[in-house]
């Protein structure tokens, strides 16, 4: 530490070690902050239509792909999830069902990113699903789904944490009712 550069180097190196410890403490402290989020998704209507293409599904080979169009209502209060280490929340509505060939299927009906605590109360009505809903077996017959709201807390530093609401049960998918495209 006898020259200017030496002392500057010593200060910088120690501060990097210290910031590492500070960020570690912040990351671990975020794990023990209590929160009480609540949320619910309900489907008001489900329609199955056939068509060649949909919102984000392009399959010009098959004329009769079965797409499900849902109208949802979502209520959630996620403001208690915003602590000092929360950068944003990724919130998504999931429908879960089982088919004879695949015991567990999950599809995302809708998602959003919430960046501020003031925007964390969600109250949506008449929402269409954001992405095309098409099953891997190409048919929606005999499918009975639960829908629930999931969220993912993206931190500034540390661990990604997940949570979900209770599932609303028993939404049966009807037979195809019309031709879309």
């Amino acid at each position, binding site marked *: *530490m*006898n*020259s*200017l550069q030496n*002392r*500057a180097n*010593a*200060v910088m190196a*120690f*501060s990097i070690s*210290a*910031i590492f*410890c*500070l960020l570690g*403490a*912040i990351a671990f*402290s975020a794990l023990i902050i209590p929160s009480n989020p609540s949320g619910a998704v309900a489907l008001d209507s489900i329609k199955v239509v056939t068509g060649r293409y949909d919102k984000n599904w392009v399959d010009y080979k098959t004329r009769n792909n079965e797409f499900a169009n849902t109208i949802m209502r979502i209520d959630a209060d996620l403001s208690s999830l915003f*602590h*000092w*280490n929360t950068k944003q929340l990724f919130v998504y509505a999931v429908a879960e069902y089982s088919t004879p060939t695949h015991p567990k299927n999950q599809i995302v009906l809708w998602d959003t990113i919430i960046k501020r605590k003031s925007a964390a109360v969600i109250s949506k009505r008449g929402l269409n699903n954001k992405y095309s809903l098409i099953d891997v077996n190409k048919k929606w017959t005999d499918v009975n789904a639960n829908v629930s709201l999931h969220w993912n807390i993206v931190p*500034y530093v540390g661990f990604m944490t997940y949570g979900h609401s209770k599932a609303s049960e028993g939404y049966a998918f009807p037979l195809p009712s019309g031709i879309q495209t």
Partner: protein
Amino acid sequence: MFEFHIDFQGQNLAEQITQGVISAFGVIAFLAGLIAQDIRLSMYIFAAGVAIAAFLVIPAWPYLRKNPIKWLPSREKLAAAAAASKQESSTSDLKDKKAS
């Protein structure tokens, strides 16, 4: 002119100051951010701590140079001094001989 050296006691003091100041500001930053639930506050307080430690330690302040190093005299000077004292003793011997 551009040396900016500090002595050994000063270096010891400088090390203690950087570690103490930065660690203290780290703890204060964590507690303040935890209470205010604002991570930017923590980062600003920590940056202020680093700036204060840098200001106290990097320039060669006089309080870091209070115990200057005592260098031994250079070898040329020692040799010249030895030669001078030898000359003196030899001339004084001659003087004594002449006197006796």
